[in-house]
């Protein structure tokens, strides 16, 4: 029996597939996890959303020490490949995010009087309304939604906003504005939808 080209081609493909399969471990693979955006990207997003036109925030001052921003996700080049390194969440990166974002949140909360960062006018207007907390006008859905979208952007589902709003209306109902805005900002910026690439 003569074997045609098709047979050899099929055999070669089958051999190649089995070669690839043979190298795959029998252990089950887990789903890859999303990576942190990294400090540079988060800084850029916050500047884009909140800073006055032509200005950008110097948010590096909130990172606990030089080089630590690399632990929050940084691009690495290996030959022609560019990969995001250190983007997987871990306990050390969570410590650093918490410290850095707490600093940013305090700056936002401390801007009810003299702004500590060069915010754009629209955000300042929203912030000043929120600074009247716990007054009723600061708790309106329009003000809360404007603040939420200003910081979070449009990456999170509506359910995240609803949970955030409900929590602050209930748990911070009578607390001072500075404490509330600090906590609101930290709660938004520590949200997975804010910190992670989707």
């Amino acid at each position, binding site marked *: 029996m003569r074997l045609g080209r098709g047979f050899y081609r099929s055999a070669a493909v089958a051999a190649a597939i089995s*070669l690839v*399969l*043979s*190298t*795959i*471990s*029998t*252990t089950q*693979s*887990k*789903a*890859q*996890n*999303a*990576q*942190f955006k990294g400090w540079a990207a988060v800084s850029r997003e916050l500047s884009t959303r909140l800073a006055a036109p032509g200005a950008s925030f110097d948010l590096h001052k909130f990172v*606990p*020490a*030089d*080089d*630590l921003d*690399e*632990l929050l996700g940084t691009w*690495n080049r*290996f030959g022609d*490949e560019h*990969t995001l*390194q*250190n983007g*997987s*969440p*871990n*306990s*050390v*990166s*969570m*410590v*650093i995010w*918490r*410290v850095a974002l*707490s600093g940013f949140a305090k700056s936002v909360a401390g801007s009810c009087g003299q702004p500590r960062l060069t915010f754009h006018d629209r955000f300042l207007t929203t912030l000043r309304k929120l600074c009247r907390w716990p007054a009723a006008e600061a708790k309106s859905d329009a003000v809360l939604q404007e603040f939420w979208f200003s910081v979070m952007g449009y990456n999170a589902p509506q359910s*995240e906003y609803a*949970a*955030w709003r409900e*929590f602050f209306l209930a*748990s911070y109902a009578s607390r001072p504005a500075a404490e509330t805005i600090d*906590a609101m900002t*930290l*709660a938004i910026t*520590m*949200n*997975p*939808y804010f*910190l*992670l690439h*989707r």
Partner: protein
Amino acid sequence: MIPTRRDMLKISLAGAGTLILPGSGLLPASAQSPDEPHFFLMIVLNGGADCSYMFDARPLSMTKAGKIQNYLGQEPAPFTGRNGTGTLATSLVKPLLPFRDRFSILNGVYMTPSFDGHLQNMNFLFTGNAFGGDSFIPHLNLPDTGREPQSLDGVLSSDPVVVTVNNHSAVVPLMPRAVAGLANSLKQTPPLAGGELTEFIRGRMTANASGPGRLSAAAALMQAGLDKSPRVHQQLAQLTPPSGRDSPEQQTLALITQCFRLSISRSAIYSPSEFFDVHATEQAKTQPKMFASAIGKIVTLLKGLGETPFDSRRSMLDVTTVMVASEFGRTMRSPDGTVDDTGTNHNQFSNSILLGGKGIRGGLVIGASDLRDEVEEPSAAHLQLDPLQEKTMGLPFDFATLTTRPDMPAAFDVKDYLTIGSVVNTIYALFGVPKEHYRVLRRELPTAQVLNGLLM
């Protein structure tokens, strides 16, 4: 001073005598107590280091015959392990000789079955899968080992090793230069306290961690990291910054030993800056210099571990298992050019690994690669994988005696060879990692055999 053959023989004979000491024979290993402190240091020689510049050298007659490049230009000396197995070693390894009874040499270690790329073989080294997967490093910190897990699975105290792994979220890059700022800052900031706000933030992570997607997986990691963060915060705040006057390796050592002693991390990964991927002739000619530098760094770490107390009874080396490995070895030469004007390519069929420290029987030479001189003929199994005879290849291996076999297989069968799977499974056995994690030789084959004779 370059050690002469006579020096090497003297040292070898002295070492061989210790084989008759109680408890030092080639007997099966006894299990380590879970209460014993046990850490792991992995030193990665990046780029594929040529084993012939260390403990798997070739005689100059092979170079004269045009078979293998040798830019050191010196005759290697015989090196015999306490188990009587010999190899050839270059003068470049002389700084390691004071530690020869603390580590063993594994030659002819087979890496991936099918690929000769850097990433595939680095993946295979860490995960047992050329395409990546779960790394063995976090497995050493599993609660199933019987030890209380350290806060982190590992710290990476040098530039990143490029590898595709799923489970390195608790293998954290931590460079010595970052410690001062980190510790000072954390001392000034209180750790995350409990309370409503923390619970809310945690709750959003929990709520988003339940789905099947990538964001959910990351949200789960964020939550796990947040839960551990108060303890990690307090531990990191205790770190003392390494002295800026010390060499980078001394600073690395200071950081690693603190991470171990403060229960921050189970393992540490360190990769010297030398990059051993020497395809071009000019790169290949720098190998003696690169190896001398990298070996000097390894010696600094080993010496430092030996001199740094873990407690009143033990040094850090007494409680740390150390592995030195590259992703693969190298071909003997490139096909083009003359033997004194050539680079080398990748060789996944023969790698050398040093394994020492806690739990490892030191002073042994285990395994060997073929084509040991200019007249040795390869087996048919070798020719099956490397018909042009560009690569050395591990010799068939007897796992009971940890010696090479004299037969010349007619066809390649991975069960005949010493593989990286066996090396990793031996480390697993040492740390008490459950057998479900042991590496298989191939998906339809059994687990790679543990090198029991290597364990104390």
